[in-house]
């Protein structure tokens, strides 16, 4: 009786250990994905900031014949 209980407990311990290692691999993969995505987001934010840079927009606007309005051309609207 004691022998069979010890045997089953031993098996259970081995199973738990295997699960633990599997889980740790999965966690590692997810952590890597998370870091990669975060890094990608940072790079995309920089790209967005580059694209929205006022200097770039000014150049693009001027290329399309646009210019900033002069003082007399602006009209302030009250909320």
């Amino acid at each position, binding site marked *: 009786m004691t022998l069979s209980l010890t045997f089953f407990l031993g098996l259970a311990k081995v199973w738990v250990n295997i699960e*633990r*290692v599997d889980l*740790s*691999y999965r*966690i*590692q993969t997810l*952590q890597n994905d998370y870091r990669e995505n975060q*890094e990608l*987001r*940072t*790079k995309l*934010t*920089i790209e*967005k*900031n*580059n694209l929205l*840079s*006022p*200097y770039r927009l*000014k150049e693009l606007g001027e290329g399309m014949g646009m210019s*900033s*309005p002069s*003082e007399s051309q*602006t009209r*302030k*609207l*009250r*909320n």
Partner: protein
Amino acid sequence: MLQMTKTDLNNKKDRTRIKIIIILGLFIIAWMGLWTRALFIQVIKGEELAGMADRQYYSKEKITGKRGEIFDRNGVVLAQSVRSKSVYANPFLVENANSASMELAAALETDPGRIKAFLNQKSSFVWITRKISDRAALKVAEKNIPGVFIIDEHSRVYPRGHMLGQVLGFVGVDNQGLEGLEKSLDERLSGAEMVIVMQRDASGHKMSLLPQYPTRKVDGQDVQLTIDSEIQFTAERYLASAVEKHGGSFGLSLVVHVPTGDILAWASYPFFNPNNFQSSNSSIWRNRAAVDLMEPGSTLKPFLMAAALEEGIAKTDSLYFCENGRWRLGRNEIRDVKEYGWLTLNRVLRYSSNICSAKIGLDLGPGPYFQYLDKLGFSVETNLPLPGQGRGILRPSHVWSRMDLATIAFGQGIATTPLQLARAYLTLANEGLFTELNLIKEDGERLQTWPRVFSNEVSSQVLSMLRDSVEMDGTGTRARISGVEVGGKTGTAQKASPRGGYGDKYVASFIGFIPAHDPEFMILAIIDEPSPQHYGGVVAAPVFADIGASILSSGRGIKFRTLPVTEGQPVQANKPADNARFSVSHRRDRIHLGNEVPDLRGVSLREAVESLLGSGIVPVLEGKGVLVRDHVPGPGESWNQNNGEFILRLCDS
């Protein structure tokens, strides 16, 4: 015969016993050997061997935290760290240096000879190239060259290019701050180093059986500046065009929010792009506003007037004789640009007379004048976190001669940094209370009480004089902005020549306030060595007017005083930790536009225009007012009713 057989049998039995004893002995020796070995491994060498095993299971890794980011006051990223790849090699593991260098050179688009020289070094670690693009790193990885490895590093990116370049500074290849804020805030921005333990499996893969990857603990802190990148852009743009137009060698403009001392824009021209600092030089990346000294010239006169008024030496209507443009003081002669006779105190400032200023200075005396200049901070650097700030040159008053006092009265024989000058003007604008400049947002949020330099009444009188200098017939008339009263002072300082005395080069400057009374913004513009025009009123005053008009016509306008930036907004909403949050602008819900024209009657003009523009319809406005009285096509009609044109008729109420 039988006797012999019995004896043989006994001998045989004896041998068998001996054999058994020998086997038993061998067995006991083997058993004892095993036990001894077990004792040796488990008890005597146990700890050491367990340590060796742990070294195989676990690996130690040194990680460096990410450098903190720098944001402007609205959360726009000014400096950011990104992970980039670097390539290194262990030349001892490289099998064929020739083919490896050819392959690497093809992937990195560089000279194979240089790479071969690296691979021939007698070292176990050499950098091949650092901080390359992800695409190039992928090409190197695909080649799979033995002995060549790729490692992650952090590199610094300044997404807005040269914007605020000299103030931000830059970092070296190992992410150490070398100039500007990157240098002075290095300790705060740079990430800490930490050794972490990872568990590895038999094939060397890392496993996460240990607690969470602790990078967050070692990352550097973010910094939020008081700079507003929209205003910064405006300041840079108008400064650059003025320096180019007047052939100046250098230009500086500073926009300061008066009530808080927050610096909203800080432009220096020629521009410096910290992304590519190697192609620049120290004369460009030096932050001249903080480091270089200049003679303030006439821009110092308002402080003389304020000191004279405060000490009761003069009143705003006191008369001074300006000697018709030439005045001999001892062996020297002081001259004015134009010939003036009798002028009241406020006209002395308005026309910027050197002779009358010298006379006021002499009446005031060196001791009191020095004390005011000292209290205004002309002998101490500002408390901005910038490396190598100048302290100015203000000699002690007991060594001043009569001529020294006369010249210091109109701003020569004293040297200040542009920042010190801006801070002194901020004192005048803030009802005579000494106010420090701020560049780091959280520094400005600390409650501070500053000492009083001038009374409220005196500073208000000087602000009136400065308004007259622009709005009446003074030297600063080109600084006018239609629709709002502004005040300011021009400065045209002769530059000291390296051979002694004054040369033929000038510094043109203008410092002004918007509005003239109870100011909201202070703008300083300095242009170095403009030619042929060199007057502050001609060269620098228009820069003030352009930047000021642009700020007023932008959405920012005059509202900071009534809507303080530090109050009203929850601090959490402005945390720069998550920059994605800043990209979403909060807009009010627009009126929903369907297939039919909605009823816009009674709606505010702004709301109606925003809703229409949001759907690509550009309305034509008729009449004056802020409310929609009527519109064509009318409510419920089709959008194309009026040949595609949409007319909004306005009324006042």
